[in-house]
């Protein structure tokens, strides 16, 4: 009986050793082969969130049609499997470039990039820590959301009739605070008397996927006098669009053009060129020009923008547009500086 147990333990040790050996082999293999496939791991919310993750996916699809590259995506669902999803893609020897979508990946992707020096990595919304160096095979794509949100704030401040606008945040975190700060400053820059009602869905990542609560918060903001609400809350924002439709007031989308969510009630959207940055990174990777490091994308680099097209033209007077374009130039020239 006891002997049996020892054999079992011995077997387990052997198995675990065999796994650790396998990993090294794969790593060496990958360095020899020319790996062209692209891997990508989604953030909370996953593919189909009509926002951030879909933007990333669009970039992949575009790269596939233009460059003929192949890709593989993983939708990790809950937090704990994020790191293993990255590792799984990194140890696949056909895959040469791996993306992590979302600031939640920052720590994990740093470590994994060190473990797989032969592979290239990209992280969208990487939260930059100046005290740490990042591995040379990692490109940290950081967006200046505060600049885009400043413009959105200016639009809201110029359009509001009640002198009250709302902000709906997902998870109360440094990243979403950047949206909030830019928005607040934009509003008060054009309309110092305008009040901003601020609320967050939650202090955890679940705040990005609770549309019912998003709707309740938005309804409260509308009923407290706000006539425009800007959200940065992933899936929870779908609740905002429902509220905008019932209250017949305006909403502002985020990450992608969210006009379709509530046609007629979406003033504009703060778009982050997540798709473009992924597309460009893949292009550089394919041409062998991949360069690691931090890449900050703001108004100047066209990394953030607001939507103005046929759909929302009639909600958007020319006067507002001119003023906003002026502000854009001032931000680019450095005349307006935005506190984070």
């Amino acid at each position, binding site marked *: 009986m006891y002997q049996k147990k020892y054999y079992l333990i011995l077997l387990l040790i052997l198995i675990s050793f065999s796994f650790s050996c396998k990993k090294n082999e794969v790593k060496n293999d990958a360095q020899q082969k020319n790996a062209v496939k692209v891997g990508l791991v989604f953030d909370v919310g996953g593919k189909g969130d009509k926002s951030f993750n879909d933007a990333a996916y669009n970039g992949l699809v575009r790269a596939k049609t233009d460059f003929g590259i192949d890709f593989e995506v993983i939708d990790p669902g809950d937090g704990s499997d994020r790191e293993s999803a990255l590792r799984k893609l990194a140890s696949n020897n056909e895959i040469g470039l791996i993306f992590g979508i979302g600031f939640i990946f920052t720590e994990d992707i740093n470590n994994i990039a060190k473990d797989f020096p032969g592979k290239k990595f990209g992280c969208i919304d990487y939260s930059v820590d100046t005290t740490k160096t990042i591995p040379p095979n990692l490109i940290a794509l950081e967006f200046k959301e505060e600049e885009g949100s400043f413009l959105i704030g200016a639009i809201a401040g110029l359009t509001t009739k009640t002198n009250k606008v*709302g902000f709906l945040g997902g998870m109360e975190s440094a990243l979403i605070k950047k949206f909030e700060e830019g928005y607040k400053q934009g509003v008060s820059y054009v309309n110092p008397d305008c009040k901003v009602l601020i*609320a967050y869905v939650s202090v955890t990542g679940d705040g990005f996927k609770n549309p019912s609560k998003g709707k309740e918060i938005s309804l409260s903001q509308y009923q407290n006098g706000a006539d425009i609400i800007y959200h940065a809350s992933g899936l929870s924002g779908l609740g905002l669009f429902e509220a905008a439709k019932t209250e017949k007031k305006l909403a502002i989308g985020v990450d992608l053009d969210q006009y379709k969510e509530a046609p007629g009630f979406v003033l504009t959207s703060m778009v982050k060129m997540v798709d473009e940055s992924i597309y460009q990174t893949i292009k550089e990777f394919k041409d062998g020009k991949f360069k690691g490091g931090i890449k900050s994308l703001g108004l100047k680099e066209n990394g953030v923008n607001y939507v103005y097209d046929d759909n929302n033209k009639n909600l958007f007077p020319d006067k507002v547009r001119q003023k906003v374009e002026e502000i854009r130039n001032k931000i680019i020239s450095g005349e307006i500086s935005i506190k984070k």
Partner: protein
Amino acid sequence: MNIIVSILSLTFFAQVLRLFTPYFLGANAANFSERAGVINIAIEGFMITSALGYALFTYLTNNIFLGFVCAILVNLLFSLLYALFVIKLKINQIVAGVGFNLLMAGLAKFLIVFIFQSSSNTPRIPDLPNIPYIQDIPYVGEVLSDYIILFSFALIFISNFVLFKTKFGLRLRSAGENPEAGESLGIKIRLYKLYGVLICGFLSALGGIWLASNQNSFSDGMVAGRGYIALAAMIIGKWKPVNILFACIMFAFFEALEITFQISGTFIPSQIIQMLPYLITILVLIGFIGKTKPPASDGIPY
């Protein structure tokens, strides 16, 4: 001052009612099951299944009524399955409940990826109709014309009446309190346990349908722990419909209060308010607000 005005407003009242509905339906669902002696901690899972079922079948058949009926049928089927495990096969009810929660959350995600190629939500579905005329009343019309919210008002009386004033309720409770005694008087105990589980499936289905209809779609994780809060409300309410009502109102009230506090930007951090209902739950559980006593043979297979 501003806050007091907003709390006393009708819109605040309407918001509390909206937040209250899924809790109350879920808590009553769990209560019927536990009164019959079957612990069902899978309320969360049942609400997920029915929310998805409603969105999915409404989308596929393009008929809200069919979607509604199908969602309830799906939940009743799952309730039968649950009953098979815990009543017929006498599996530990906590284990079965955890299993169902995991199964249903996973299944929902699998189905939306499989059918809609989206890991987060279904396409948009039409609105659930409201009662005409009443819905035109300002501020509260939308809430008071919602069939499910109105049903949950009625449920306050229905569940009290059914459990404590009818022969059926007496027999159901005997299954949860002392099944041997009930059996000796000729009551088919296992049948009554099955009734309890089925009523639980039906009521939690209404909770899930309400959540999905409120959003006009299903999205992954949208139940967001409401099933567990419903269980807490049932325990705080000491398995009595009237107390459960107050427990659910408390949860809804504090949630609405937290939103109001955030929006009006007071010096009190909203996180403190957010914490209060859970603090009260813990205080109740450690016996500050009187001992909570479940039905005597709750959770014991018979």
